């Protein structure tokens, strides 16, 4: 009983972060900020949701932990790949941006 309550709370926090992440994808102004909300909140959200399931069903705990760790390692990589590809293709930053060091780098000459 305690286990089910604890697992539900952990999963619930994870679901809250997944909700905030998807809301952020709608609210943010450009691709980079959307990536911020879209991958960061989902990393923690998916991690907590998986661990919560593992707490409710103890015989699955190690498997869910492996899945959670894979998410934790691979999500930043995909985030990085999408961001880098966007910048290399010349997707502009939003108007509210204050600084962009890539303008002075030859690796990122403007191609837009």
């Amino acid at each position, binding site marked *: 009983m305690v286990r089910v309550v604890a697992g539900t709370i952990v999963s619930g926090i994870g679901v809250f*972060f997944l909700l*905030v*992440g998807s*809301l*952020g994808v709608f*609210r*943010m*102004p*450009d691709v*980079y*900020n959307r*990536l*911020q*909300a879209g*991958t*960061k*909140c989902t*990393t*923690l959200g998916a991690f907590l949701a998986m661990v919560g399931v593992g707490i409710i069903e103890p*015989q*699955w*705990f*190690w*498997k869910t*932990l*492996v899945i959670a760790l894979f998410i*934790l*390692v691979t*999500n*930043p*990589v995909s*985030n*990085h790949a999408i*961001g*880098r590809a966007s*910048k290399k293709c010349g997707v502009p*930053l*939003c108007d*509210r*941006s*204050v*600084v*962009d*060091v*890539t303008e002075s*780098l030859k*690796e990122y000459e403007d191609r837009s």
Partner: protein
Amino acid sequence: MTDTTNERTGRMRDYCYLFVMLFATWLMLTSSLQWQELTTGALISVVLAIYLGKTYASLGMPPLSVKRIGYFIAYLAILFVEVMRANFDVACIVLHPKLPIKPGIVAVKTDLKQDVAKMILANSITLTPGTFTLDIIGDTLLVHWIVVKSEDGEEAARLISGRFEKYLKAVFA
């Protein structure tokens, strides 16, 4: 003579680490201690360790020691705290009616030498919300920051990567 012996023990060590990691993953996935499962897992781990040993050695992971493991555990604890704290920050920004963002891309210099260390640092920066690593050019990390607190390189480095870099330097020293 001593060089080749060292090299050989180094290579044996890499194979052993790889085997232990693969076997641990197998144990977690099967979650069973029956001898059939264990033998199959051990056999598969040995084959994969021999097959992937060269690739693992080329990563240049440092040898294990108590000090390194201690620093790595401290690093993981700090990372976890930062991930939780910073996730609440981003949740606040997203839910705030005025969307208080001030995004920008800053350059952050790092002192870390090994590629693996740089990769772990870049992934840590990406995991702590508010910042993500766009690219690594030499020893410079390009970081997208959702609320730019400082445009100066050193100040930005202190705020973004300072907390992790100290521990990673100790681990990969």
